[in-house]
């Protein structure tokens, strides 16, 4: 027998180790759930980590109010299946309370406002560790992220002063009021995620599979028609065969033209594509360091 794991099994094992480590080291962890494939993968891995017991922490969804309706429907079904508690942090509430001010204009997005709602939810519930599905291959600031990422009492990230992480020894020690963001799938790439989803046949919202949808073109990115977004006069709706490579708000998630309507076809498409998955994310295009700037303030 060959005592050697393939790359997907090794990544799975590493992630399970990290997830178990969170349950062991923290008093009140929470899993940040966005409804995207990475957070669905996270819940799947958490299920594996504690089987046959239930996932020993709740899930937190920061709801911008601008989600795809398919995301919310899928989320509610999944929670019922897993038997875990879902908490919802609302951006709309943060706006109503006056914690944040909504952006206006054609490119208005609630993406940046999620940070306030997230920090508010973490503080209210006194969570000391928030698990996220961020990956290092997604974005250059995320490439510098640790598995166990320390946040000060303001939820800020200090990228130049991070704790070194050696072997599989994770230092989750903190002072009162501080917390950790933990990223168990740090080492997965987009392609790994899709290969694994196909291998394990994990259920996903149908937004990820190619389907017909009314879209319009803005700066080279196809956006889905929705009530949350103001079209400029010259932006005309057209029906296209599209799928979403990442799922965030309807206001900033670009659709890509695709015929890939099965998991196998998606794996093939991702393997041959020449544009990064966040290439369609308007929120990353605001400046060269927009992710780093948002992360320092407490973004995922």
């Amino acid at each position, binding site marked *: 027998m060959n*005592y050697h794991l393939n790359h997907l099994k090794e990544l799975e094992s590493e992630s399970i*180790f990290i997830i178990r480590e969170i349950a062991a080291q923290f008093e009140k962890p929470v899993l940040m759930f966005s409804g995207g494939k990475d957070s669905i993968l996270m819940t799947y891995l958490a299920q594996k980590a504690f089987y046959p017991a*239930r996932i020993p922490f709740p899930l937190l969804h920061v709801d911008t109010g601008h989600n795809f309706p398919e995301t919310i429907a899928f989320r509610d079904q999944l929670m019922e299946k897993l038997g875990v508690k879902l908490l919802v942090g609302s951006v709309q509430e943060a706006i109503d309370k006056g914690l944040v001010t909504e952006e206006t204009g054609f490119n208005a997005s609630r993406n940046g406002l999620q940070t306030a709602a997230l920090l508010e939810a973490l503080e209210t519930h006194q969570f000391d560790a928030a698990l996220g599905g961020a990956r290092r291959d997604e974005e250059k600031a995320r490439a510098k992220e640790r598995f166990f990422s320390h946040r000060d009492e303001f939820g800020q990230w200090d990228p130049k002063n991070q704790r070194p992480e050696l072997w599989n020894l994770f*230092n989750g020690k903190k002072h009162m009021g501080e917390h950790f963001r933990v990223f168990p799938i740090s080492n997965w790439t987009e392609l*790994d995620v899709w290969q694994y989803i196909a291998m394990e046949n994990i259920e996903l919202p149908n937004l990820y599979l190619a389907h017909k949808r009314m879209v319009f073109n803005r700066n080279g990115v196809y956006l889905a028609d929705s009530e949350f977004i103001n079209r400029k006069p010259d932006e005309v709706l057209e029906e296209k065969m599209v799928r979403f490579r990442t799922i965030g708000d309807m206001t900033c998630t670009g659709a890509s033209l695709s015929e890939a309507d099965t998991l196998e076809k998606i794996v093939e498409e991702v393997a041959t594509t020449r*544009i990064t998955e966040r290439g369609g994310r308007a929120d990353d295009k605001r400046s060269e360091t927009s992710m780093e700037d948002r992360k320092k303030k407490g973004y995922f």
Partner: protein
Amino acid sequence: MNEPLSLEEYKKMDLLRFTTAGSVDDGKSTLIGRLLYDSKSIFEDQYDAIKETSERRGEEGVNLALLTDGLKAEREQGITIDVAYRYFSTPKRKFIIADTPGHIQYTRNMVTGASTANLALILIDARNGIVEQTKRHAFIASLLQIPHLVVCINKMDLVDYGQEVYEKIKDEFSGFAAKLDVNDIHFVPVSALKGDNVVEKSDAMPWYEGGTLLYYLENVHIGSDHNLIDCRLPVQFVIRPYKDEFHDYRGYAGRIAGGIFKKGDEVMTLPSGFTTKIKAIDTFDGEVNEAFPPMSVTILLEDDIDISRGDMIVRKNNIPETSQDIEVMVCWFTDTPLQLRGKYTILHTTSEARCVVKDIRYKMDINTLHRNVDDKVIGMNDIARVVLRTTKPLFFDEYRKNRITGSIIFIDEGTNRTVGAGMII
């Protein structure tokens, strides 16, 4: 290279983690950029973005180094500050690169990157030959027991692709490495800038008969990098489902740190010393008959024994050392020097303890490998041999035998920061 593979082919790929080290300006970022670019792992939008930045700064050509330097401060200063992880794959393997800064005050990042690596890639500028940094990197690779070392002699284009230059550096490095604890060293002459021998074989160096760097990375045998002899399972978490159908279920979850555990094996639990048998090895996907590193599994035992996090399951006739007095090689990470008689929290496997530093034996001069017994001020980036007394017994193996059960980290009890890394001797 980007022909889509079938799912069955993906299941045959394995994972190689390697660390890169180089001095400032010896072309490390360019080499990584080249590996990513020539293996078609750079996406068009990433390429366009760095092309635009290069042009804006008035640089000649596309600066591939911009791909890896992600933080604002790094881009501004043109240096790498922190370990960056990069990913690429070929049909054979997925690669994780821990790209670590070569600058002297950031040695701790190199140790960090090296701790999980199967392979270390060391860069030497062909014009300068072996410099202080080269020795430092090789020593750290040896200290951290990275199983494979590949030395890239870079900028061959600037020395007219001369064989003598390559051979001279190779001999000098081999001489130095003989004093170290490294078994597998491989040399490749490259030009990261021009792409010679990185992914494509170079026409400019017909005298070099070996394979390209990528060929070596794809083919180096990593199947025996884990310890498959000494069975060790540090218990990470106890799984108790509290569900009717799993009423008496008590599973010991963890990641196998060594050896091959089999269902029915007679095992001993530490520290209790009780012996029992493995009833089952459980996973979400069903029971398995064998578990080996680095699998994460859940072990069920025949007898009801009190076991908790930090305990270890081992084979009865092959137990780790158990002691409160240990000697370690420590690499120090912080400005405040290691304190003789100082107390620190330590993490070892899944166990936590406190320790007091009883003695500092010597400080290592990593350029000369000289052991200095007179200078005992252990500051940032220093490496020293120290004696510790721990508050409770640790179950450990020599770091040379097992990188998981032989390693510890030091945590400052005031700041909670990770201040040092230790390898048990």
